[in-house]
């Protein structure tokens, strides 16, 4: 009887742990999967088409990088009970506070426009006109946030995250050879030598993996959810699971386009989906659905990141647990950003390609600043107490931040001056 009793209690403990995880999970998974937004999907599709499976190893490395950066926001949010914008104001004063807030607002809005570009392009494949996509998306996103509960919003967002995994079966549909994926993809290599084009693609992949809005979003989300210091281990697991998902999706997209479109020049995920459709209609359709979902997830998170940040600094009620009449400015920010970004996409002849390119450059200006603030805040013993960065964490996180700053700066420069790196 004793082994049975032991097994029963062991099973109960495991089940309790899973149940606890299911309660606490959310911010990490949502932010990581939303990281594969419309711009991200385009980057991965272009990477697979250009270099086949050869850069899969690089995407695998980016998973832990994203995890280590985002994990810091979990600790900061759980300990300080403050969002990232408020933490910067409080820690560094009004100058850096306003700089970060306005930069975030600007980059978020431009990124939101690119999400609408992705969503309208994806549904246009199925014959849905742009105006209908924008209208339905705005309505849908309104319904998602106006229920007045963070928990409901989060579970809906996780459902959209699950849909983002559609790229994995799509990759299987095009029947890639496992031996090729392992042989070419998992052994670090620089296809064609380290040249300007390869450098640009490596930078673009880093740029899509770590974005400024992710720091602001996850920290605010941790606060809104009410995670406490004791929940930090589970917050880490949540972030880790999200990082695994984001890498899986990125690798699946590279496998998909690397199998079907290897050698083609792709600079638009919707165009890539149409091209894949010619070889495998179902895989192409799944790619288009995934692109729409990626844009939607990105839009949900980015518009919330801005609204949370403004609410924190201006002292407005800024929780998804509040009704619209209790937090009118919070929801006003959310809808103004959303609707105005959607309308830009509908302007005939709007410079959408220029906007997409501009987003990358402007995001570069915020990313190093946000990362430096993050490291400094995590080293403030008065605020963080025993959750202050340890030496090894500073070495790992500091190293990651230093590399990201150098590379993202070079990426910004290469976008501004395309002939710079040959």
């Amino acid at each position, binding site marked *: 009887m004793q082994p049975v009793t032991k097994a029963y209690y062991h099973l109960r403990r495991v089940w309790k742990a899973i149940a606890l995880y299911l309660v606490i999970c959310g911010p990490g998974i949502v932010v990581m999967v939303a990281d594969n937004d419309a711009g991200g999907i385009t980057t991965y599709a272009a990477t697979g088409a250009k270099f086949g499976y050869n850069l899969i190893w690089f995407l695998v490395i980016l998973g832990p990088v994203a995890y280590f950066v985002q994990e810091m926001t979990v600790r900061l949010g759980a300990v300080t009970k403050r969002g990232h914008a408020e933490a910067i*104001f*409080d*820690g*560094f*004063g*009004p100058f*850096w*506070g306003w700089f970060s807030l306005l930069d975030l607002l600007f980059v978020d809005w431009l990124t939101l426009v690119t999400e609408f570009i992705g969503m309208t392009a994806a549904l246009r494949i199925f014959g849905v006109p742009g105006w209908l996509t924008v209208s339905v998306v705005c309505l849908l996103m309104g319904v998602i946030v106006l229920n007045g509960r963070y928990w409901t919003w989060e579970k809906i967002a996780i459902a959209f995250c699950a849909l983002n995994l559609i790229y994995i079966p799509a990759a299987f549909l095009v029947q890639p050879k496992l031996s090729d994926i392992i042989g070419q993809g998992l052994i670090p290599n620089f296809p064609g030598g380290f040249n300007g084009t390869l450098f640009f693609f490596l930078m673009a992949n880093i740029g899509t993996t770590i974005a400024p809005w992710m720091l602001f979003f996850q920290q605010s989300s941790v606060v809104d959810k009410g995670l406490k210091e004791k929940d930090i281990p589970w917050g880490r697991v949540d972030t880790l699971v999200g990082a695994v998902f984001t890498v899986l999706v990125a690798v699946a997209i590279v496998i998909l386009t690397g199998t079907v479109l290897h050698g083609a020049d792709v600079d638009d995920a919707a165009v890539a989906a149409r091209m894949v459709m010619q070889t495998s209609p179902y895989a192409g359709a799944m790619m288009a659905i995934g692109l729409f979902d990626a844009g939607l997830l990105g839009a949900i998170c980015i518009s919330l990141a801005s609204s949370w940040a403004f609410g924190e*600094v*201006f*002292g407005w009620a800024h929780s998804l647990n509040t009704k619209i009449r209790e937090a009118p400015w919070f929801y006003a920010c959310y809808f103004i950003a959303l609707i105005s970004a959607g309308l830009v996409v509908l302007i005939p002849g709007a410079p959408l390609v220029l906007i997409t390119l501009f987003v990358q*450059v402007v995001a*570069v*200006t915020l990313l*190093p*600043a946000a990362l*430096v603030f993050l490291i*400094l*805040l995590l080293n*403030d013993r*008065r*605020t963080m107490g025993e959750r202050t960065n340890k030496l090894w964490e500073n070495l790992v996180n500091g190293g990651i931040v230093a590399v990201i700053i150098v590379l993202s*700066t070079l990426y*910004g*420069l290469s976008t*501004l*001056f395309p002939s710079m790196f040959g």
Partner: protein
Amino acid sequence: MLTLAHTIRTMTAEFVEKIRSINRRYATPRIEMSGPVRVALLSLRIYLLVLVGLLVYKFVITVAG
């Protein structure tokens, strides 16, 4: 018209006062301004100035060209 102008003036004044109150609230940075922190913030200022300068330069030559 007068009422509208008055409303706009009042709202603007309230907004400006709100900004001032935020500036007052966060006037003293909580982070201890140690040597490494000062160096990091100074480097960040220089970095941003250079990058914004390059952005403006690129904008000017694009418009002029």
